[in-house]
């Protein structure tokens, strides 16, 4: 079975500071990895995904995540956060043998002015 662990439930960070949101997974088969973002009072939106190829994936708003197979991690990073990045971030994993997403419990990112 697959599982996803997001170690930090809450991450406060000052504006323009770097941030890393951690995600680890467990799986005995090949995985596909996703980060979703949920802004206040909105639904989840896909931020970025790793399916194959380059292990470093980027989003259009400056976030990036790197798939590390040996460490079974897919941490999300941004070198300089903005107030508008305040949101809940969910890591998710799926496999090539199933069509279901397994979500982590989420990390609440709060950017402090």
């Amino acid at each position, binding site marked *: 079975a697959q599982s996803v662990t997001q170690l930090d439930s809450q991450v406060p960070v000052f504006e323009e500071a770097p941030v890393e949101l951690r995600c680890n997974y467990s799986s005995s088969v090949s995985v*596909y990895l996703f980060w979703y973002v949920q802004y206040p009072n909105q*639904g*989840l939106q896909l931020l970025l995904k790793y399916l194959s190829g380059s292990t470093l994936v980027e989003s259009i708003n400056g976030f990036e995540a790197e798939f590390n197979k040996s460490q079974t991690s897919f941490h999300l990073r941004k070198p300089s956060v903005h107030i508008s990045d305040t949101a809940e971030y*969910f890591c998710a994993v799926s*496999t090539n043998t199933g069509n*279901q*997403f397994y979500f*982590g419990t*989420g990390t609440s990112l709060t950017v402090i002015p």
Partner: protein
Amino acid sequence: DAMVIQNPRYQVTQFGKPVTLSCSQTLNHNVMYWYQQKSSQAPKLLFHYYDKDFNNEADTPDNFQSRRPNTSFCFLDIRSPGLGDAAMYLCATSLRHGILYEQYFGPGTRLTVT
């Protein structure tokens, strides 16, 4: 804008009183999903429809049912809500079923059971 709409955003029901949550989409997607998200927990898939084909997750309680009368609408029926059913319920859609197809989520309905 094409979107996924959930009504109501907040729903209060009494213990044991049937309740229906609604989801509609303007994306014309084939697949619609229902997730349950309890406080501080990950979203958990309850079931999904691929067109008219209903697919129930193995551990979804019988208390939860779903209807999809047409492509645009999907309903979640909770026949006898218990206190443990209080949660955020998320509806999502995708063009087809599979991890290669992005899921588009609605804003959710927060259910309170009194």
